[in-house]
């Protein structure tokens, strides 16, 4: 989208904000396009991982409420921490965990257990992400998930990863373990995956297998009556002899 010229007028900020709004709007239009077979598999990933949310979330004020906290063997343990906030498109997201553990000696590392996140992909589709454990590094703004992650969206897509390392600020995610993505009419497996640029580019590697069950994928297609092709593959009269 061509950046608007910045007229140096009093309301420079207004233009700035319109540009961001327009960017967010075009951004949300881009997210709208999630309902397509093949790309949906990819955008699903881009659109749903924690990275995506954190990346789109400006440093908006987030409320972290902690039910109770205690120290156990010298570590600060928070029970049922919840983190909610709004994405750039003003859609609410919610991240909860059973426990958040912080070692006073390494305050920038927070270990989350039983992570459960509800992340909006767009106005009407949201994704639920669960992971047994997540290690959040505040300085690097990264999240390492050593255990399986399940992503399920409200429009029937599902992704399963064995682990993932997420660069939250950079909006990137990578895993070198098998991934499985399924949705109505198609499923995809691969042995590694890298998401970058907030899901704009998704790279699968090592025995990628995509299976499209075209019957359900294009329900509306009526079964064409192909007349049986007679004779040899090339009808003599049709061969163009120049």
């Amino acid at each position, binding site marked *: 989208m061509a950046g608007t010229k910045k007229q140096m007028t009093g309301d420079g900020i207004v233009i700035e904000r319109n540009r961001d709004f327009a960017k967010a709007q075009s951004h949300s239009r881009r997210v709208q396009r999630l309902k397509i*077979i*093949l790309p949906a598999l*990819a955008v699903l990933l881009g659109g749903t991982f924690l990275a995506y949310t954190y990346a789109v979330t400006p440093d908006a004020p987030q409320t972290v409420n902690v039910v109770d906290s205690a120290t156990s063997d010298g570590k600060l343990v928070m029970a049922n921490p919840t983190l909610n906030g709004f994405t750039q498109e003003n859609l609410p997201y919610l991240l909860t965990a059973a426990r958040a553990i912080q070692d006073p000696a390494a305050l920038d590392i927070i270990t989350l257990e039983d992570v459960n996140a509800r992340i909006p992909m767009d106005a009407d589709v949201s994704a639920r992400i669960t992971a047994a454990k997540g290690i959040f590094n505040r300085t690097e703004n990264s999240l390492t998930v050593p255990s399986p992650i399940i992503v399920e969206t409200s429009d029937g897509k599902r992704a399963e990863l064995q682990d993932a390392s997420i660069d939250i600020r950079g909006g990137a995610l990578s895993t070198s373990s098998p991934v499985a993505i399924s949705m109505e009419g198609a499923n995809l497996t691969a042995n590694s995956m890298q998401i970058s640029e907030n899901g704009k580019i998704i790279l699968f590697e*090592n025995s990628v297998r995509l299976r499209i069950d075209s019957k359900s994928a294009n329900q509306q297609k009526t079964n064409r009556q192909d007349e049986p092709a007679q004779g040899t593959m090339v*009808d003599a009269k049709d061969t163009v002899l120049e």
Partner: protein
Amino acid sequence: QQSRSGLADLNLSGDQPIEIESDRLEVRDAERVAVFSGNVQATQGPTVMRAGRMVVHYRTEGADASTSSQGGNIERLEVEQKVYVKSENRVATGDRATFDMATEVLIMTGEKVVLSEGDNVLTGCKLTIQMNSGKADLEGCKSQQSGSGRVRMLLQPGSQNQ
């Protein structure tokens, strides 16, 4: 049981599931392409296609998704690097192929496009197949030593049994 023959079977929009395998798949949403590369193999029913690289161009949901062609939101495929297409006993090989989902036309081009069925072998430079009717046109090569762009056809006598 009269087996439907002809490359018409290579119709990616049929009802049978399609399996695509490759070493790598890169989906670039901004350009709305998905690039399969490295030992790409696409199989649908009796039809198999192999190539080094296959680019799938898809349409965004915004466009007329409801009236999208049978292939759902896929607009066209571009296949390159040793393209091999086999459907039952028919094989076509060439350097590049494109398949347009809407018109269901497969066009295979290359220095030497070879189309064979059993022992019958045809060589030319451009093979156009209407997938829905199975009608195929093989055009000869315009220049070079292969004569005046004629299609070279080798028909084995007695192999016309149907």
